């Protein structure tokens, strides 16, 4: 039982990172129609930036906020400088994002090096509840993610901006007729998704070491989660992230860890073929206006 609870917290902390990345992918796809392949590199840069700022002597959580700012700015530049030119040709945007992911990886290698990097455990505490030992950092990761998910969820389902966002995802030109500045929403969503990736990266390096090549692993998981949930469907991404995190956690703990990645890939192929709009109902991308 104790092991089960510990395993659960561990799985949830890994799932948190997956959820953050999946939410970003799903939001950006829903509105901009681009599957951003470089989103995993955005996360990696979030982690590396955190490592860098911590190395400069900053507190981990200050570094985390700075990393979010850095990656948010990166998202802004990528959207305004690259992806806005391919909005009417999502395939080109997708291929361009592959190029961007190669560039970002190797720029990081160039500036730093290709070896794995880690930060000292930011909390360095183990909470003991009864017989259960919980590593504090893992619990904090789960808590932060829960807060971010809640903010995003309420922002989308309750606020005026969220309503306008949902309308824009459903039908861009009609949304424009309502007076909604859809172009600005596209940029906004791109930046928000990037900030989530930055946060995910920072939390990840708080849990375990990462290399400049972690992005390609994490992007696959992000795709699985966003597709399972339905592209453009944030609630779906959260649910799918939890499911995947648990499956992964338990398969790593009790099953065949070397096949862990294969599960998600097979799940993804099956979903794409059977229900390309996602399990929980999503979109196949914005309608051309």
């Amino acid at each position: 039982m104790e092991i089960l609870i510990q395993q659960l917290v561990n799985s949830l902390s890994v799932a948190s990172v997956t959820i953050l990345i999946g939410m970003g992918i799903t939001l950006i796809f829903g509105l901009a129609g681009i599957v951003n392949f470089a989103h995993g590199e955005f996360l990696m840069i979030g982690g590396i930036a955190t490592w860098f700022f911590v190395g400069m002597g900053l507190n981990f959580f200050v570094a985390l906020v700075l990393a979010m700012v850095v990656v948010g700015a990166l998202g802004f530049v990528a959207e305004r400088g690259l992806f806005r030119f391919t909005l009417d040709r999502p395939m080109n945007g997708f291929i361009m994002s592959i190029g961007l992911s190669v560039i970002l990886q190797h720029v990081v290698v160039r500036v730093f090096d290709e070896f794995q990097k880690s930060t000292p455990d930011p909390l360095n505490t183990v909470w003991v509840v009864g017989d259960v030992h919980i590593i504090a950092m893992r619990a904090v990761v789960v808590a932060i993610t829960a807060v971010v998910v809640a903010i995003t969820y309420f922002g989308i389902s309750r606020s005026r901006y969220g309503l306008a966002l949902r309308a824009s995802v459903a039908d861009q030109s009609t949304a424009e007729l309502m007076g909604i500045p859809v172009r600005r929403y596209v940029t906004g969503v791109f930046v928000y998704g990037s900030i989530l990736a930055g946060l995910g990266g920072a939390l990840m390096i708080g849990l375990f070491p990462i290399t400049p090549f972690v992005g390609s692993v994490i992007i696959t998981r992000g795709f699985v989660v966003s597709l399972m949930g339905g592209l453009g469907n944030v609630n779906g991404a959260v649910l799918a992230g939890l499911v995947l995190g648990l499956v992964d956690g338990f398969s790593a703990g009790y099953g065949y860890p070397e096949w862990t990645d294969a599960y998600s890939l097979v799940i993804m192929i099956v979903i794409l073929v059977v229900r390309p709009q996602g399990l929980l109902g999503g979109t196949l991308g914005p309608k051309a206006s």
Partner: protein
Amino acid sequence: MTLLTVEHLYTAYGAVKVNHNVSMTVGEGEIVTIIGPNGAGKSTILRAISGLLKPKQGAITFDGRNVTGLAADRMAGLGVVMAPEGRKIFADLTVRENLKLGAYARKDQSGVDADIELMESYFDILATKRDAKGGTLSGGQQQMLAIARGLMARPRILILDEPSLGLAPVMVKEVRSVVAAVRDKFNAAVLLVEQNASLALAVSERGYLLQHGQIVASGPIEELRESSLMRELYFGEQSAQAGE
């Protein structure tokens, strides 16, 4: 007072030219219609006016201000609001959310709430189906919602693109009375595009007859109704001769 002026408008989709040298006006509180057969370029004029399509040439003036080429969201903010062809209700959003979206450009929250109530009292169906998804409404109910959603912006001019499209005859009659109410109750001018000539002729004061992207006749609606050009456009030359 002239509210909207279109001068020498040319439009095209890529290499495909649609409108040639279209000039027209809509006065304050006036109901104006553009009639013409399918493919004549009626909707394209509306897309240019509402900002969904950038004109190739020509000028559009609204309330004394040059608005040529302004994006649709800016036009809506100015009070030029279009209920698009095919209604384009947000199918996954509730009726009420659809109405709220119509008022996106407005800042007065209390006014918006009051207007939602006003719409619900005027269109009963919007009150009874308040929390239903827009996609579950019938075609006629969706058309009412589309018009009400447009009115939520408190437009100075409401542009209706084929409001009778795909509606049963009894609903077409209802659209007719709603169009009149847009002007009388909500103080907006109406620019209407219709393929259903009888509806257009019944509600409008003035009209423009469009053929192959050009205006071929215009004037008070009674004159258009009597013109042989009108019959010819809809039934071909033979029938126009037979009818004389």
